[in-house]
């Protein structure tokens, strides 16, 4: 980790995708127009969120248990802070975010009420049409299922509409076909596809190549040699 960006151009679904992919521990900081919040990420799960006046203060913290002890928050109530300071803001676009590696020690296990997979789908459901079009940009795109899509879908807690969209992904149907066959609103289908992509449940299927590259092996070897010499 060690990334910054704007929520206006890089959505929560995109950020959660990075957190999920890295499965690291660190901090997810957002400078909103009204407040600053910091979410504590442990092994790719957001376990606690709180508002903070001065962001630099958070970088001096060493032990997570002493942080929540000081704030007098019992472990079983940590999820309420995620609800209050993160989930309630998933529809906002006014923040600037940072994902920061942070060596804060976690001494025990902490309950995770909202898995990163669940958060990703929750945020995908709130995407605007122009945001969805950033990744579901081609009617002709074909998606195929990843080998572990079932396990991920379980963690993501799909709703019936999303489950229906998922059932239509077969490595043959285009995005156009899925929209038509799902008989749902286009935005609902596209949000679902966006979320599945972010979760790694589906992936782009490359169009099969019918012909070999129009160049001989001998010439290609020569080109490689020539480029090395440039």
């Amino acid at each position, binding site marked *: 980790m060690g990334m910054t960006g704007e929520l206006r151009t890089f959505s929560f679904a995109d950020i959660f995708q990075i957190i999920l992919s890295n499965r690291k521990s660190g901090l997810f900081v957002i400078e909103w127009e009204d407040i600053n919040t910091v979410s504590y990420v442990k092994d790719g799960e957001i376990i606690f969120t709180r508002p903070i006046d001065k962001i630099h203060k958070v970088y001096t913290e060493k032990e997570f248990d002493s942080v929540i002890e000081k704030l007098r928050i019992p472990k079983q109530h940590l999820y309420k802070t995620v609800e209050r300071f993160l989930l309630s803001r998933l529809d906002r676009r006014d923040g600037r975010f940072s994902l920061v590696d942070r060596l804060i020690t976690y001494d025990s296990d902490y309950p995770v009420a909202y898995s990163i997979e669940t958060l990703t789908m929750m945020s995908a459901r709130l995407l605007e049409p122009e945001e969805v079009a950033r990744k579901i940009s081609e009617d002709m795109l074909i998606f195929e299922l990843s080998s572990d899509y079932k396990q991920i879908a379980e963690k993501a807690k799909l709703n019936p509409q999303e489950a229906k969209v998922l059932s239509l992904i077969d490595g043959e149907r285009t995005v156009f076909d899925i929209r038509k066959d799902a008989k749902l609103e286009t935005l609902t289908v596209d949000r679902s596809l966006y979320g599945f992509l972010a979760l790694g449940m589906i992936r782009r299927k490359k169009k099969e190549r019918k012909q070999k590259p129009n160049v001989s092996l001998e010439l290609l070897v020569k080109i490689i040699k020539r480029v*090395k010499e440039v």
Partner: protein
Amino acid sequence: MKTIKKIKIVIAGPFSAGKTQFINTVSEIKTVKTERKTRAEGEKAVKEHTTVAMDFGKIRIDDEHELYLFGTPGQSRFDFMWEILGEGALGIIVLVDSTDPSTFHEATRIINYFQSRYSVPMVVGANKQDLPNAWSPRDVATALNISESENIPVVPVSAIDKEMVKETLIRLLELIRDELVS
């Protein structure tokens, strides 16, 4: 007089990803540019001139062959050039400004476009790795939804560094070679 056979590689990418610089760094001729002054407010703040049709550079291979590098315009209003330049290309390099996640979606759109139409080998160059705040190639790959099965390498590059530009080109050429022998 012998006819020179042209071998085409396309350099695509969002606005200000470094495509013109990439071609300039490795081309043996002065890059042929079709630049105009930027007009859009957001673009003017980034750079004064931008490519409007294509950039073009080349490397002479032998007496009969030349490697042509065509750079596409970055703005989506010039999408129609992707089709023109993509036709007959041996491979595609998609450059991404690793320091600017706001452009990653445009890069995704470009990859989606080519992946759903032209099944040619593709390499993503995570450019501007020399700058602070550059996202790692691995994180860029995640943001662009590139899965391992797609066989699209995401390589670190700085378009001002000749060796890195050459390595990116060679990576693409090796992919093409693998397709030939498979």
